[in-house]
């Protein structure tokens, strides 16, 4: 009976989320829905390397205990988080147990710590909209009882919730981004697959000095301290093919 009622409620829940007027309002409506299944805590975030300047502007909403949350986003901890690692590799929803079984020893310690804060069970819904940073919604709690159909409905609610939250979040600033010239793009493409400046000069039929100049200009435009960082930044910003 209860399951049937919830099933009928999903379209209403989606409408409610879609018409929310603020991020807090959106989250309140979302959490109202997932609470029925035993989920009490949520973490919505875009996953961006913590040392990138953009990381400070990443979208993040959570009602996790602040001690746990601060620790998770401290230093480089985020890149070791088993849930984050699993979300990067997996495009489908997954349970935290799946992430735990693939975690490193340090990762398992992190998850064990979460269990102490009553976040022992949970699911993560990775969000992979083309052209947007990878993100996800994690929901957790204790005594969770969900069927696959319930999870499918929660996944829908999570998709709508995440989209709505994105609409309230300002896009990453692009004003300071300088366009790379076609030659700078080409030299970065070759550098990203390990070609030296000399090899690139042979392939592109230009002088080695011209290749080095182009790489220098690209590094400067991308605020990169070396060519490796320039290549990864160009990939992250979709300027070159990964």
């Amino acid at each position, binding site marked *: 009976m209860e399951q049937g009622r919830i099933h009928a409620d999903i379209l209403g829940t989606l409408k409610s989320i879609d018409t929310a007027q603020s991020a807090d309002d959106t989250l309140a409506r979302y959490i109202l829905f997932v609470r029925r299944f035993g989920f009490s805590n949520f973490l919505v975030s875009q996953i961006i390397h913590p040392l990138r300047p953009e990381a400070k502007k990443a979208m993040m909403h959570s009602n996790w205990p602040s001690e746990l949350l601060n620790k998770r986003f401290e230093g480089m901890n985020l890149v070791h988080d088993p849930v984050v690692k699993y979300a990067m590799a997996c495009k489908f929803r997954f349970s935290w147990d799946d992430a735990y079984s693939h975690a490193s020893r340090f990762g398992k310690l992190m998850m064990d710590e979460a269990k102490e804060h009553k976040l022992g069970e949970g699911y993560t819904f990775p969000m992979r909209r083309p052209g947007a940073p990878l993100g996800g919604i994690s929901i957790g709690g204790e005594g969770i009882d969900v069927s696959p159909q319930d999870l499918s409905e929660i996944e829908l609610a999570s*998709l709508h919730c995440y989209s709505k939250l994105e609409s309230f979040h300002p896009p990453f600033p692009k004003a300071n981004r300088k366009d790379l010239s076609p030659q700078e793009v080409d030299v970065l493409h070759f550098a990203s697959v390990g070609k030296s400046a000399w090899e690139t000069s042979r392939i592109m039929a230009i002088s080695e000095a011209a290749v080095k100049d182009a790489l220098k200009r690209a590094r400067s435009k991308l605020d990169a301290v070396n060519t490796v960082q320039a290549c990864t930044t160009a990939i992250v910003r979709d300027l070159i093919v990964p």
Partner: protein
Amino acid sequence: MILIIPPQVRDLVRDRLRQMFVLRHDVCFEQWRWRFPNQNDEIDIDDFDTEETIYLVYVDTDRDDVIGCCRLNPTTSPYMVSELWSERCNLQPPPRDPSVWESSRFCISRNLSSKREYMEIMWRMCAGVCEYCVAVGIKKIAWYTGPAFYQTINSLMPVEPLGTPYFDEKDQDTYIAGTGLVDEQAVLAARRNLQNPNVQLTYAVSPLAGRPDFDQFKKKEAA
């Protein structure tokens, strides 16, 4: 530019249509690794390329090739969601309404120079499809897609799922059937993602096919 190819002008653009079918084959069978029992080795044509289908084809005039495409089918005739996946529509029945059309085979070439160019062509196709729908009075589009593209559509227009996400064992992928409300706001939302939001996108193949009133968007934007 995006060519609009309704059924009555197909003979005028046979070569373009063939290029489109080749692109679809490349994307569906080589990139997405779909497998059908009777698939053709060069082109992708199926039962839903019908007498009523309208194609939107993105032509790169420099390369003289098709680099993006989409097909629209009326929901008043059999269409993919109603015929193939109706049992996955567990929240609402597949629509049958003259103002609701199905968008399918939304393909972008994988031979573009960068992901940025890929995204630009994808957004241009999204904007072109929305513009065309608004111009000819299509109020909603139905589709069957993965969660990532579901979110892309949701970033442009209000969407309603027809079913809950379905994990397809064969494809090892998740799909959702849904509908989206296409209006001027959706056109503007799609155009905001373009490098030049004011670029003219869509062109009718022949005066016989009629030319939608695209200037209305410019007026609204200016206002």
